């Protein structure tokens, strides 16, 4: 705080040109100065802080309060103490949602990271035409998740999905029930999200790989280090800090899986693709059992805040190492 409260250099500059002031006069001027800096800062900050305060900070506080209440969206709100929290703990549907989301997060991130590192290292080595490949791989990110999911209807629909047409036409099977069966449905959602996110992660890791100095690789090669050895001893250590940070960020975003689930399966079949956010939305706006939704919202918030703190910590460590 000291740096903040100290008068700016211009104040000092004013001071020595002026005759010496009495203590009271000095205090008055200091107060005036502080008032002026606050007023000036408030002018620049208030447009953002008002929007942020009303539509984010207040809702966060209100949400915590709401988690001890029931109703309030269409019916009257009533205080229920810890009831939501105890019920949320034992609710089987919420448990299924947490379980599905966790399975989804582990598989999706594992697959998308492995593929992305693989493709990024290919693009890093074979540079001819790599711009075309980068742009093409990035393409799925342009469409909103909703539209990406819509496109995959035409790939995975039981009757006319392209994958099933191929399966029936070439392999003579009966067709695969991609969305109407467990665990197919969740795996299909994983595939769709991997498809959507792959381009981003390829570019992300490509940027990381390109920061590995050429000379290091060349030196290792001259020393007789094989390909695998170079990958393990040079590429992995340089990517590791990036990887951890990326992992935390990816968990934060993937834990909020909703759009494609809502469109492709709406949580089904038999809750096979129910996710945490899907559960929250459904309880709030369909079932009207709002108490459970309030509690699980705050649960989600706490998990995400912890992960955010972790990501900042990792980033700080990376900065320190670079410095």
């Amino acid at each position, binding site marked *: *705080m000291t740096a*903040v409260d*100290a008068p700016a250099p*211009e104040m000092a500059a004013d001071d020595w040109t002026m005759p010496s002031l009495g203590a009271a006069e000095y205090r008055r001027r200091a107060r005036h100065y502080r008032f002026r*800096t606050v007023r*000036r*800062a408030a002018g*620049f*900050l208030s*447009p953002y802080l008002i*929007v*942020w305060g*009303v*539509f*984010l*900070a*207040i*809702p*966060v506080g*209100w*949400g915590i309060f709401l988690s001890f209440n029931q109703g*309030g*969206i269409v019916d009257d709100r009533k205080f229920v103490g810890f009831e939501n929290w105890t019920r949320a703990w034992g609710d089987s549907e919420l448990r299924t949602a947490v379980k599905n989301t966790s399975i989804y997060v582990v598989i999706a991130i594992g697959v998308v990271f492995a593929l992305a590192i693989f*493709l990024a290292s*290919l693009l890093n*080595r074979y*540079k001819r035409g790599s711009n075309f*490949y980068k742009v*093409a791989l*990035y*393409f*799925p*990110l*342009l*469409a*909103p998740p*909703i*539209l990406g999911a*819509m*496109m995959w*209807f*035409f*790939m995975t629909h039981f*009757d*006319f999905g392209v994958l099933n047409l191929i399966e029936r*036409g070439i392999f003579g099977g009966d067709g695969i029930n991609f969305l109407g069966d467990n665990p197919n449905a969740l795996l299909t959602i994983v595939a769709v999200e991997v498809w959507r996110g792959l*381009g981003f992660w390829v570019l*992300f890791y490509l940027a990381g790989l390109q920061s590995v100095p050429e000379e290091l690789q060349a030196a290792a090669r001259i020393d*007789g280090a094989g390909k695998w050895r170079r990958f393990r001893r040079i590429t992995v250590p340089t990517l590791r800090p990036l990887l951890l940070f990326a992992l935390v960020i990816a968990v934060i975003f993937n834990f909020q899986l*909703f*759009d494609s689930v809502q*469109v492709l399966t709406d949580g089904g079949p038999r809750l096979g693709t129910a996710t945490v*956010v899907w559960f*929250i*939305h459904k309880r709030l706006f369909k079932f009207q059992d709002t108490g459970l939704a309030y509690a699980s*919202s*705050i649960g*989600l918030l706490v998990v995400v*805040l912890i992960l955010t703190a972790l*990501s900042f910590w990792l980033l700080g460590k990376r900065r320190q190492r670079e410095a």
Partner: protein
Amino acid sequence: MAGDVTPDPPALEEVPATDEISDADAMAERLAEAGRAKRASDRTRKILAYVVLSLFVVIAIGPAFYLISPAFRDSVSLFTYPPEWIPSEPTLENYRFLFSSTSYVRWAINTLIFAGSTTLLTLVTNSMAGYAFARLRFPGRNVLFFVVLATLMVPVAAVLAPTYLTVNTIGDWPIIGNWIDIDTYLGLILPSAVSPLGVFMMRQFIETLPDGLYEAARLDGAGEWRIFTRIVLPLIKPALVVLGIFVFMLTWASYLWPLVAATDNEFRVLTVGIASLKGQFVTDWGILAAASLLTIVPVTIVFLFFQKWFVQASMAGALKQ
């Protein structure tokens, strides 16, 4: 590029130990052969790499390209066997229906209003706040910045109910309730413009500007506002473009908040509108394909023109933090 053409020097283990070869010529021959073999295996590996990359490109853009087929066909033909890949009787019927019997145009306009205003609002508020955090000294600055930054990752879903109730409550107030409410543009836009990511980005960027700039301007008698609008804003233009693209892409693609904040068809945006075309029981797939295709084509065109900015913007979210 050099790495593609000239092969690596043969690795040491491929060259037999010298005591096996007495003749220098034979040694040279063995070396050349090892080089040739390596070159050949390099070429196969390279071809393989491009085959793999191309396969992933097909997967990435294939689903969008396939939409062309059902978009210009009668939906009934989707269910015929053998499958009809290329429309035998191409029809614009799906598009006629889309424009005459759904509110597609309304949704598209709403999306532009929604994403455009959110972007503009974000750019204005975030650059101002970023400037204050970067340049102005005021008591409590660090604490305030930390508190704002702590909300960086708050999920939309985690504050869905209280945000909805906040907007709904404001909607009951006199006068201001006419402007901010569920099913109003401002009710949709304001809660979408809260993320501190831009504030953080702007602060980082403004901090890198040299101090001399401000001192010169201050000596010339410019106030803070003048320094901000005349000196800082022109200098941070590239950062503003990147932030603008990032926010626009994020906003127009968003689904959960518009789904609950704009239930009235008059205020629906494209994502919610198109999702509503998929009926609970009966869905006209041709119309769905037509709507999806029509929506991604303009974005793709814009993207192809400004791809470098797009890629930078998407990285900004993850790397520049």
